[in-house]
């Protein structure tokens, strides 16, 4: 280090010294034992879990002995728990927890897909999972941009609705699906502009504005939907083509998942990295984060806090509005009342799970997309012993476990939700 800080720097603990994690250890050990019991007592010895590459290599199918795989995964989980109970180097803790959780979840997957009639169609499921994660991704990214600048955007649901509705409408009017996407973005922009104005100029409680915007968007789109029904051909479904990247699309697993998707997938993935770059590597990002963290500090350095907030929130609407287009255009659907079904709120949760970081948001959205897809697949295959409703709970339950078990306290930007009055101390 070039310069000494002169002040005493306290001693760092040697991270390789083992520390006991009693609670986490006990939980993982119990989970591991649970899996082992299932593996040997419940699962039949000859049960196989079938994994199929259903899109590229049509006749390749792996039959894995369920008991063996589950036993290995269960032992892994239990071992992680035992290690934690005995004492584990502090810096290994997170990684080992993540491995243990993954092993546990996979063991359950193997169990679920060992039921007769179920096949884990790897490519369809993964491709579907990526596609299903998109609304959470767009919603949460929009939330990240807003909240990083200190404005809570609880109105994502409303922006989704506006985007979904306007996207179809504009596509119908212009006859061009891409114009529809732009229309969705503009609709999102206009609805967040109201949030921006009320939150900055009029200093209204941001949660209230968000709740109101949701109500307004629901009322407005439902009302307009009824109006449009009277006119023919303003709410017809418009589809976007699936892009196939030639030979890349034929690569097993990766091909169908990454190179045979709709443009929404690519925009979503690119956006994650763009927002990340903007936020952490540019002047705009530095100022945005400063304004969300300590607006008075930014102000004292000549940054116009409320103007920056205003524009950030407004522009974030482009993202959530585009996310709205996912519901209609990406799914080739016409608009219907309240079609976003509360996903905007889940996107909010994904944003928190992702710790207000675009990369974290990507991870959170993928978890959600994956569990939703698996739940639907199991429900549809009819082989599940668990009622469909419980399968549908899966994404929510997994999020709860992930948040409570691994993420713990997520720290919001310090000034998130606090209106800024220039001249405040």
């Amino acid at each position, binding site marked *: 280090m070039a310069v000494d800080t002169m002040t005493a720097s306290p001693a760092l603990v040697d991270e390789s010294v083992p520390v006991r994690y009693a609670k986490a250890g006990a939980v993982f050990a119990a989970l591991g034992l649970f899996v082992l019991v299932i593996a040997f007592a419940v699962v039949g010895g000859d049960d196989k879990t079938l994994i199929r590459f259903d899109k590229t290599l049509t006749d390749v199918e792996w039959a894995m002995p369920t008991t063996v795989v589950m036993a290995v995964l269960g032992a892994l989980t239990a071992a992680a728990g035992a290690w934690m109970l005995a004492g584990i180097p502090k810096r290994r803790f997170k990684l080992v927890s993540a491995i243990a959780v993954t092993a546990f979840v996979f063991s359950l997957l193997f169990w679920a897909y060992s039921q007769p009639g179920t096949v884990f*169609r790897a490519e*369809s499921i993964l491709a579907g999972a990526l596609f299903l994660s998109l609304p959470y991704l767009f919603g949460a990214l929009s939330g990240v941009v807003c909240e990083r600048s200190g404005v809570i955007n609880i109105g994502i649901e409303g922006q989704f609705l506006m985007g979904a509705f306007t996207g179809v409408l504009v596509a119908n009017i212009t006859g061009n699906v891409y114009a529809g996407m732009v229309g969705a973005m503009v609709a999102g922009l206009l609805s967040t502009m109201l949030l921006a104005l009320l939150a900055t100029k009029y200093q209204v409680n941001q949660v209230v504005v968000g709740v109101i915007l949701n109500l307004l968007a629901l009322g407005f789109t439902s009302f307009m939907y009824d109006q449009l029904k009277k006119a023919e051909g303003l709410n017809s479904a418009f589809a976007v083509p699936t892009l196939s990247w030639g030979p890349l699309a034929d690569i097993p697993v990766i091909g169908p998942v990454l190179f045979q998707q709709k443009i929404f997938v690519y925009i979503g993935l690119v956006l994650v990295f763009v927002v990340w770059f903007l936020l952490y590597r540019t002047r705009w990002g530095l100022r945005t984060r400063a304004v969300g963290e300590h607006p008075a500090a930014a102000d004292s350095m000549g940054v116009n806090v409320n103007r920056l907030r205003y524009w950030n929130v407004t522009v974030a609407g482009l993202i959530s509005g585009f996310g709205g287009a996912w519901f209609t255009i990406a*799914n*080739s*659907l016409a608009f*219907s009342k309240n079609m976003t079904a509360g996903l905007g709120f889940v996107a909010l949760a994904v944003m928190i799970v992702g710790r207000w970081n675009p990369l974290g948001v990507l991870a959170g959205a993928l978890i959600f997309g994956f569990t939703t*897809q698996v739940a639907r697949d199991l429900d*549809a295959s*009819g082989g599940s012993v668990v009622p*469909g409703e419980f399968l549908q709970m899966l994404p929510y339950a997994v999020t709860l476990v992930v948040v409570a078990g691994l993420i713990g306290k997520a720290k919001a930007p310090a000034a998130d939700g606090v209106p800024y009055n220039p001249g405040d101390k």
Partner: protein
Amino acid sequence: ACGEAPSENGGDGNADASFLACMVTDSGGVDDKSFNESSWAGMEAAAEENDDIKVEVKESSSETDYDPNLQAMVDNECNFIIGVGGLMTENVNTAATANPDTAFATVDGFSEVENVYSIQFDTAQSAFLAGYVAASQSKTGTVATWGGMKIPPVTIFMDGFAAGIEQHNTDKGTNVELLGWDAEAQEGTFLNSFEDTAAGKSTTDTFISQGADIIFPVAGPAGIGALTAAAENDAVNAIWVDTDGYESTEYGAELITSAEKGLANAVKDSVLAAYEAANGGEAITGSYVGTLANEGVSIAPFHDFDSAVSADTKAELEALTQQIIDGTLTVESPSSPAAQ
């Protein structure tokens, strides 16, 4: 804002009509692309046909709205009040008992109250035929159905559909498999929503990836999701419910046929009958059950698939229909109309 003023006031429907027919919807609203909407279409058709009939509707968002809505219709001095949905039957009964001079009707429910007319449908019969067609048309040997919610008006379709496939398998020695509904166990795949089209699509995609090439969504508007999925897959087609989807949806090209439920007609007839009754005709009482026999339920024409469905199959359908009408063949479902 610079048009010509019309020479006279635009007439407001049948503004001066003497007979007021009123409808209270179930949750989902009057535009639910399902039984509320069909019933309302029947009401409007009646008003269209008879200038002396005026129609009105109130939507319920949950069953706790039934009573105030029915009461409001009574207060409105409606001459004929229709409650849509089996759940409302008891509320209709109560209102009818309290207002013995007003005619009532209940759709999809059965009532023994004197002034309540029951309108029910044995849709298992039309779904049976649809199932038979599906089995005959499937290339992969796998077809799928899924429902909006596990309620009788939905599962009766699924039961009939399953029975139709079974019939085809027995008669023709095929081995067509049905995903999404186990009639024996009365268990299957449900979205738990009639609105979530996106979930409908993704569920259908899942069935497609499991090999299904004909999808039978029984979920009102959420079923549109299945049609989009079919539209995106050349090899996949669908069968619609309630109305002829070739006309009521934009996805006619995907639809082999539809398991129709003649709700609109039945409602329309009942309104017209109630009008007659009010004007000295015979009072409408008792119940109506739509069946293949009275053409209250049916399967829609094949439209674009007319050439795809073989003449043999058509003949077999003809025969099966006849057997059902005769009563030599019964399509059973635990959800079949309660009392005849």
